[in-house]
């Protein structure tokens, strides 16, 4: 065995892990080679130094801290998962975001909704609000419609208030524009709608694939079918407006109508008027002012429309009594007779009165 081979086995020898077969060879070499035996001694020396070395112990603070950390970690194992979540910093942002989303979804967009139905609705509204020729956003369709109308009904746009007075005073001028548009236009517009109804298929066949056109067609259909009444109203309005184009004449016309209706009776009576008259007559009779009472009651009976039967009855009774008191027997009898006719409840009383008056007059004659 040479020194090189020995060095390979040196560690095994020192560590005591050498193969038994090699031990003899190593021992033989060590006995022969002073250099190698010196190395082994030195290695053993080094090991002795190392083993004699003292090393510091870790400080008790560190050990205590580690022990405490271990305890805390083990306690975490016993904490249910939801409590970990409850105290985790994730929970608060997650919950608050969730809450915000919930509020937004449930409340946030309530006022503004953009569903397909609403689109239809808004188009419908526009169709109702605006004359057809003024409908916006349908470039191709609009031009076509306008030219169609012009060929059928003559120039339409020329009647529109294209050169209308500038909207200087806001609302008022807008109203004016509205009236002019109305007074000038409604008839053509209506005819246009009617025309549309007939020509609808032809007009829109090219654009049928477009959603917006479908919407418009729908709106037009509805408009064409639905408001016949509206059309009549418009016609009436047109008729009345045709007399006088301005709002002023319209008001005058209204007043005239009102006056005309009041001509047949210069007074208008209500139930209270009859009642007041009757009460006045009865009061005058009580006071002994028979002439005045007679006059009042006769006025009452001459009213048009005539008073109701109960009122008439009371008036005839009052008249009869007054004439009787005054000694005008004939008139008293005629009034009692009227009472007998009109009021079945007092008929017996009236007959009695008449017989009494006749007996009186007979006695007086005799």
């Amino acid at each position, binding site marked *: 065995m040479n020194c090189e081979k020995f060095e390979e086995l040196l560690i095994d020898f020192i*560590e005591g892990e050498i193969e038994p077969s090699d031990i003899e060879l190593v021992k033989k070499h060590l006995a022969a080679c002073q250099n190698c035996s010196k190395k082994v001694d*030195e290695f053993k020396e*080094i090991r002795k130094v190392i083993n004699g070395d003292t*090393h*510091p*112990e870790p*400080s008790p603070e*560190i050990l205590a801290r580690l022990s405490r950390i271990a305890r805390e*970690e083990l306690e975490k194992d016993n904490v249910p998962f939801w409590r970990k979540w409850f105290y985790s910093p994730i929970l608060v942002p997650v919950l608050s975001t969730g809450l915000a989303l919930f509020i937004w979804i449930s409340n946030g967009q309530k006022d503004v909704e953009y569903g397909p139905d609403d689109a239809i609705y808004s188009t419908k509204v526009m169709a109702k609000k605006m004359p057809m020729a003024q409908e916006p956003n349908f470039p191709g369709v609009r031009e076509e419609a306008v030219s169609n109308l012009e060929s059928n009904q003559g120039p339409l746009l020329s009647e529109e208030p294209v050169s209308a007075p500038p909207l200087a005073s806001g609302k008022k001028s807008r109203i004016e524009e509205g009236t002019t548009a109305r007074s000038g236009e409604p008839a053509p517009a209506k005819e246009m709608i009617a025309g549309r109804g007939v020509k609808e298929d032809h007009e829109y066949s090219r654009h049928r694939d477009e959603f917006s056109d479908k919407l418009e067609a729908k709106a037009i259909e509805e408009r064409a079918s639905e408001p016949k009444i509206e059309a009549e109203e418009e016609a009436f309005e047109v008729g009345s407006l045709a007399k006088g184009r301005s709002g002023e004449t319209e008001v005058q016309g209204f007043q005239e109508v009102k006056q005309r209706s009041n001509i047949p009776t210069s007074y208008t009576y209500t139930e209270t008027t009859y009642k007041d008259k009757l009460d006045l007559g009865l009061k005058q009779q009580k006071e002994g002012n028979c002439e005045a009472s007679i006059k009042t009651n006769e006025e009452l009976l001459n009213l048009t429309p005539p008073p109701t039967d109960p009122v008439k009855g009371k008036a005839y009774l009052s008249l009869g009594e007054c004439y009787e008191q005054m000694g005008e027997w004939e008139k008293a009898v005629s009034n009692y007779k009227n009472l007998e006719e009109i009021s079945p409840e007092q008929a017996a009383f009236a007959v009695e009165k008449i017989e009494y008056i006749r007996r009186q007059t007979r006695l007086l004659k005799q």
Partner: protein
Amino acid sequence: MTDLAEKKEPTDEEAMARFQNGDVGAFDFLLHQHSAAILRFIMNMVTVNKSNAEDLLQEIFMKVIENRKKYDSNRKFTTWLYTMARNRCIDYLKAEKHRRYSSLDAPLNSETSDGPVKLEIVRSKEKNQEEKMMNKEIRAILNTGVENLKEEFREVFLLREIESLSLKEIADITNVPIGTVKSRLRYAYLNLREIFIQAGYFEEGQIAKGV
């Protein structure tokens, strides 16, 4: 280890299994068993002061706590523990490489130049004192020698000679074959011997022996 077994104390593996099941006492036992050795290993491995070494020690045992569920009790506990300690030390060395290399040259030179002089003084002392001083001196040389070993030699040497782990375990920890562990260990010894020779120790020892 055998002592502990005779005293019917749990093995490291049993203690670790108990710690996994929530026994804090088992962790305290492991801490008591290995903290000093790990601290020693750290101090030799990365050559820092005790305070820094204790920081590293704490980090390593924190990893034991954190990764307790990952530990396979069929594996030897010391292998697992020293693997974590060794990896932490290597990370530390990587981070500190520049500082370490620049600061290590100086003490080595002064040591080698001062060595013989000191030894002369030592020889003039009384035998007991002489031995004490010799030991102190030798330890200083040894520490310097270990410090200056290459990393892979140093870790093998420390694990074998100071921590007394088996060659097989060292192979597992350092993730190399046993043959490599052996050769590294031999190089470590040879390097240390060189340092001792440079320090004049073995020449003197040889002379003393010869006489």
